[in-house]
C-alpha cells in the first residue's frame, strides 16, 4: 500500500500551521496548485490532487471547483482515479447539484463493468446520493444485478434497491420478486440485504405486506438457524451469531406479525426461544433482546410471552449500564397504556431514575412517572415529583409542572392537598407554569369555602417572602382581595394565623403594585384587590382611596381605566360599592368556549339594583366580570383578554323575568334528533323539538323551524325560558331566515341543566317578519320527548 506522498505532505503542512491565518494561507496555496493541475492535461497525479481537495473540503473550506473534476475522474478507466472520483462525488455532490446528473451515464456503464469492484463503486455511490431521476433511470439495471450476479454484488444491489424505493416509492413493485428469492441464499450479507429490502417494501405498501406474510416461516427458520447453531467464527459477536441479521429479521417479523393472528402464532415459539436463550451480559445480547421485546409487544403475542417481555424490560431497568436503563424506559413508555399494571410493578426503579445524572434518562423517567400516577400512589408520587421539580433541569420544568397539575387534578385525595400542591409548584417553578393555571387555581379556591381562611394565610405568607413569581402573586392578590377580612380577623383553624394590621396588608399590595418585577396583569390584580378591601376593612379606606386616585393617572391604560372607574365608585356610586365588591359566588368549572350566553338562575349572593345606575354598573361589570345579566344583553368585554381572570359568566343572576335576551354562543353543532315532536304549528310556520340526554341532569334540545308558506320569512328568532332552578344556554341559530315552501330549515340548539330534577317546562317565544309585518307568538312546552318522566 503506497502512501500518497503529496497528500500526506500537504496534511502535515496544514497541521503544522500554528494559527488559523497560517492554515488559510497554506490551503489557499494548495488550492491554487490543485486548480492549476485540474486544468492541465491528464497526468498521473490526478487522484492525489482530488484527494487533497477532499481533505481541504473536510476542514470546511470551499471546494466546489472540484465537482467537474470528480465527474471526469469517474469516467476514467483507471481504478484508482475512479475510486477517488466516486468518493469525491459522494462528498461534494448531492442530488441538488446539477453536476450529479452528469455522472448517471458513468454509473450506468460501471454497473455493467466486468470487474466487481468497479461495479461496487457505482452501486455505493448510487445508494448514497442517487437522485430520483437517477434512480428511475438505473432501476432496471439494479434489478438485473439482483438476479444474475455474485453474492458480493447481490448484497450491494439489494441495499441500492432500498435506496431507490425510498426515493421513488412506485419502483417497489419492480423488486418484489427478486427480493423474495434472495431470502433463500446462504450468504449472510445477501440475506441481510434482502431482509432490509423486504422491510422497506412492506412498510411502504400494505399489499406487498400481505404477500410477504408467507415468508414468515422462512424467516423463523433462518432465525432458528442463527440462534441454535454452534459457534460460527465468521459472524460471531460475543457469542451471538450474526446479531445484525438477527435484529433485522426480528424487525421484519414485527411488521409482518402486527395485527395478524396467524403470523403472530407462527413466530411465538421462536420469540420465546430467543428471549430466554440470548445471553444478556454484553450490549450485543441486549440489542437482540431489545428487538425481541419490541416485537413481542407489537404483535398479537400470547400473554405468557408478553409477561416475559415486560420482565426483560424490568431486568433492563436494574442494569448498571445507563444506556440499557434508557432503552428500557423508552419501551415501557410505549406499553404503559396497555399493560399498565405490569409497568406499575417497576414504579420504584423508575422513580429512582428521576435522580439520575443524565438529562435523557431524567426525561424518560419523568414521562413514565407521570404516566404511572394513579389514585393509590398519588401522595408518594407527588412527593417525588415535587422534589424532582426543585432540582430538575430547566428544559423539563414546564413539562413537570403541567404534569403535576394534571395528576393533582385527577387524583387529589383532598382539596387542601390539592391547593397545597399547586401552591408548592407555584413557589418552586412559578415562571414555568401555563397561563390558565391562575384562573384554574382561583376557581379551585372559590370552590373550597372551608379552606378560604387557610388559603389566604398561606398565600399571604408566600407573598411576604417572594413577589417575583407572577402566577403566585396574582393568585395571592386575588385571595387577599376576596378574603382579606379573614386574614385580618387573626384566627385560623388550619394553620398558624398571622397577626396583621390593615396597614400591613395594604403595604403588601402596594409593594406588588410598585414593584418593577410585576407584570401589568399582576398590577391589575393588585389594584382590584386593593379596591375590594375597601369594603372589608374599616379604618384605612382613605388610604385605599388615595392609592386608587394615584393610579388614575398611570401610564398603563388598563390600570388607568380601572383606577378611574374605582374612583367613580367611590365618588358617585358609593352606595353601590358594597354590593359591587361583595364576595364572589362560586365559579363553576367551565370549558373554554362558554364566554357569553345568559342563564336564568336564582342569584346566589350578588344582587343588582335594577334601574337607574346601569351605566357604571355595566362598566364595572366588564372589568370585574362579576355580574352577568341584567335586562340588557351583556356584550362580552374585549378587554377580558389578559387583564382580568377570564371567569366564565355562567353564574349570573336576574330579577327572574320569564324571558331573557339571548346571546349567540358558539357555532351551532347540530345533533341528530332522537325523537321529534312538533311544538308549534301556525300560519305555515312549524317548530319541532327533539332532545337528547347528555348526562344525569344535562339535556340538549334541538329546535327546528320550517316555513311552508309561499313567502320567505325574515328575522326569525326564538327565545326560551325555563323554571328557575334550570340552567339554560342557547347556542346561535343556524340562520334567521326561512325560505318559502320549506326549502331550508333553521335549527337552534339549547343546552339545559336540571340539577334539581324539577319538572321540566319551557316557554318559547317565536318572532319573525313575514310579508312586511312582524309576528310574535308564544307557546308552552310541558313534556319533552325521550325524557321518560
Amino acid at each position: 500500500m503506497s502512501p500518497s506522498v503529496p497528500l500526506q505532505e500537504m496534511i502535515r503542512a496544514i497541521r503544522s500551521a500554528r494559527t488559523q491565518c497560517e492554515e488559510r494561507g497554506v490551503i489557499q496555496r494548495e488550492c491554487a496548485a490543485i486548480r492549476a493541475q485540474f486544468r492541465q492535461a491528464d497526468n498521473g497525479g490526478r487522484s492525489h490532487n482530488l484527494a487533497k481537495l477532499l481533505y481541504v473540503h473536510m476542514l470546511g473550506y470551499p471546494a466546489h471547483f472540484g465537482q467537474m473534476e470528480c465527474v471526469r475522474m469517474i469516467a476514467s478507466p483507471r481504478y484508482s482515479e475512479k475510486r477517488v472520483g466516486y468518493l469525491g462525488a459522494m462528498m461534494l455532490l448531492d442530488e441538488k447539484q446539477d453536476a450529479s446528473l452528469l455522472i448517471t451515464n458513468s454509473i450506468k456503464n460501471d454497473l455493467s463493468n466486468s470487474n466487481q469492484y468497479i461495479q461496487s463503486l457505482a452501486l455505493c455511490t448510487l445508494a448514497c446520493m442517487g437522485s430520483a431521476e437517477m434512480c428511475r433511470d438505473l432501476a432496471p439495471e439494479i434489478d438485473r444485478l439482483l438476479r444474475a450476479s455474485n453474492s458480493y454484488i447481490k448484497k450491494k444491489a439489494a441495499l441500492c434497491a432500498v435506496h431507490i424505493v425510498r426515493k421513488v416509492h412506485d419502483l417497489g413493485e419492480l423488486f418484489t420478486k427478486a427480493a423474495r428469492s434472495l431470502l433463500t441464499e446462504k450468504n449472510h450479507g445477501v440475506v441481510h440485504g434482502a431482509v432490509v429490502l423486504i422491510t422497506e417494501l412492506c412498510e411502504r405498501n400494505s399489499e406487498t405486506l400481505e404477500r410477504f406474510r408467507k415468508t414468515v416461516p422462512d424467516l423463523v427458520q433462518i432465525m432458528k438457524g442463527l440462534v441454535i447453531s454452534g459457534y460460527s467464527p465468521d459472524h460471531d459477536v460475543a457469542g451471538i451469531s450474526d446479531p445484525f441479521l438477527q435484529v433485522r429479521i426480528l424487525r421484519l417479523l414485527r411488521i409482518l406479525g402486527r395485527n395478524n393472528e396467524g403470523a403472530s402464532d407462527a413466530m411465538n415459539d421462536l420469540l420465546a426461544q430467543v428471549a430466554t436463550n440470548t445471553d444478556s451480559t454484553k450490549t450485543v445480547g441486549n440489542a437482540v433482546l431489545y428487538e425481541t421485546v419490541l416485537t413481542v409487544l407489537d404483535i398479537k403475542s400470547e400473554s405468557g410471552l408478553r409477561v416475559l417481555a415486560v420482565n426483560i424490560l424490568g431486568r433492563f431497568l436494574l442494569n448498571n449500564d445507563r444506556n440499557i436503563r434508557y432503552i428500557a424506559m423508552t419501551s415501557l413508555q410505549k406499553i404503559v397504556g396497555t399493560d399498565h399494571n405490569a409497568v406499575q410493578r417497576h414504579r420504584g426503579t423508575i422513580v429512582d431514575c428521576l435522580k439520575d445524572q443524565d438529562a435523557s434518562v431524567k426525561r424518560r423517567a419523568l414521562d413514565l412517572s407521570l404516566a404511572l400516577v394513579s389514585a393509590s400512589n398519588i401522595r408518594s408520587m407527588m412527593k417525588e415529583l415535587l422534589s424532582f421539580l426543585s432540582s430538575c433541569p430547566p428544559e423539563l420544568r414546564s413539562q413537570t409542572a403541567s404534569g403535576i397539575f394534571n395528576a393533582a387534578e385527577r387524583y387529589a385525595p383532598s382539596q387542601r392537598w390539592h391547593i397545597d400542591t399547586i401552591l408548592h409548584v407555584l413557589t418552586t417553578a412559578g415562571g414555568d407554569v401555563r397561563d390558565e393555571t391562575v384562573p384554574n387555581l382561583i376557581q379551585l379556591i372559590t370552590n373550597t369555602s372551608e379552606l378560604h381562611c387557610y388559603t389566604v394565610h398561606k398565600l399571604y405568607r408566600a407573598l411576604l417572602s417572594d413577589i417575583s413569581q407572577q402566577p403566585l402573586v396574582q393568585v395571592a392578590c386575588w385571595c387577599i382581595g376576596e378574603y382579606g377580612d379573614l386574614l385580618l380577623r387573626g384566627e385560623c383553624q388550619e394553620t398558624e394565623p398571622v397577626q396583621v394590621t390593615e396597614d400591613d396588608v395594604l403595604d403588601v399590595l402596594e409593594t406588588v403594585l410598585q414593584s418593577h418585577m410585576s407584570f401589568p396583569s399582576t398590577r391589575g390584580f393588585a389594584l382590584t384587590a386593593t379596591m375590594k378591601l375597601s369594603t372589608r376593612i374599616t379604618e384605612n379606606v382613605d388610604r385605599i382611596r388615595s392609592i386608587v386616585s394615584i393610579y388614575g393617572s398611570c401610564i398603563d391604560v388598563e390600570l388607568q381605566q380601572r383606577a378611574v372607574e374605582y374612583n367613580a365608585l367611590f365618588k358617585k356610586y358609593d352606595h353601590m360599592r358594597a354590593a359591587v365588591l361583595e364576595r364572589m359566588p362560586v365559579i363553576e368549572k367551565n370549558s373554554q368556549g362558554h364566554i357569553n350566553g345568559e342563564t336564568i338562575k336564582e342569584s346566589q349572593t350578588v344582587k343588582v339594583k335594577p334601574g337607574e345606575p346601569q351605566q357604571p354598573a355595566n362598566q364595572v361589570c366588564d372589568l370585574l366580570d362579576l355580574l352577568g345579566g341584567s335586562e340588557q344583553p351583556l356584550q362580552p368585554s374585549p378587554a377580558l383578554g389578559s387583564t382580568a381572570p377570564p371567569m366564565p359568566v355562567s353564574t349570573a343572576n336576574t330579577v327572574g323575568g320569564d324571558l331573557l335576551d339571548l346571546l349567540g354562543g358558539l357555532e351551532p353543532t347540530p345533533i341528530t334528533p332522537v325523537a321529534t315532536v312538533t311544538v308549534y304549528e301556525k300560519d305555515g310556520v312549524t317548530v319541532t323539538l327533539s332532545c337528547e340526554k347528555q348526562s344525569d341532569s344535562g339535556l340538549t334540545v334541538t329546535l327546528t323551524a320550517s316555513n311552508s308558506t309561499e313567502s320567505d320569512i325574515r328575522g326569525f328568532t326564538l327565545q326560551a325560558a325555563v323554571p328557575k332552578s334550570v340552567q339554560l344556554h342557547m347556542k346561535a341559530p343556524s340562520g334567521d331566515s326561512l325560505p318559502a315552501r320549506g326549502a331550508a330549515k333553521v335549527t337552534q340548539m339549547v343546552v339545559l341543566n336540571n340539577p334539581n330534577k324539577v319538572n321540566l317546562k319551557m316557554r318559547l317565544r317565536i318572532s319573525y317578519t313575514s310579508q312586511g309585518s312582524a309576528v310574535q307568538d308564544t307557546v308552552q312546552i310541558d313534556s319533552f320527548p325521550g325524557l321518560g318522566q
Partner: protein
Amino acid sequence: MQFMLLFSRQGKLRLQKWYVPLSDKERKKISRDLVQTILARKPKMCSFLEWRDLKIVYKRYASLYFCCAVEDQDNELITLEIIHRYVELLDKYFGSVCELDIIFNFEKAYFILDEFLLGGEAQETSKKNVLKAIEQADLLQEVHSVLLQFSAL
C-alpha cells in the same frame, strides 16, 4: 442511518458521511451544532440523545467521537454495535488504529466505511469479508497504478 460523523475532542471533523440529501451549508450547520452538543456532555452520560427530531447514538474511542444519527425505528443498541464493528475494522486494517491514521489516510477510512455500510445500512456482517474486499480493492488499485507507472515510462 442518516449520517455518521467522526470528530476529535477539539471539535475537528475527521470524517463525515451523509446518507440524506442536504446542502453544504446545512451540513456544516448540523455538524457544528451537534458536535457542540455532544462535546458538552459529561463522560458517564447516556450514549443516546434526542436532538432536534433525530435519535443520536455516539461513543467515544480514545480521542475520537463516533456519532450516528438514526431513524426512529432503528435499534440504538445495535447502532452501538455497528460503531464498534467499524472501529474494529479500522483497527484491523491500520493495525492498532489511532486518530493520526485516520487523519493521514482519511480516504482509506472512507473506503472501509463504504465496504461496511451502504446507503446507511450494514451490507456485510462478517468482519473477515469486509477486510478481504478492501484488500482486493487495494490490490486492484496497486496493479493499476503500477501499470500507470510503466505506461508513463
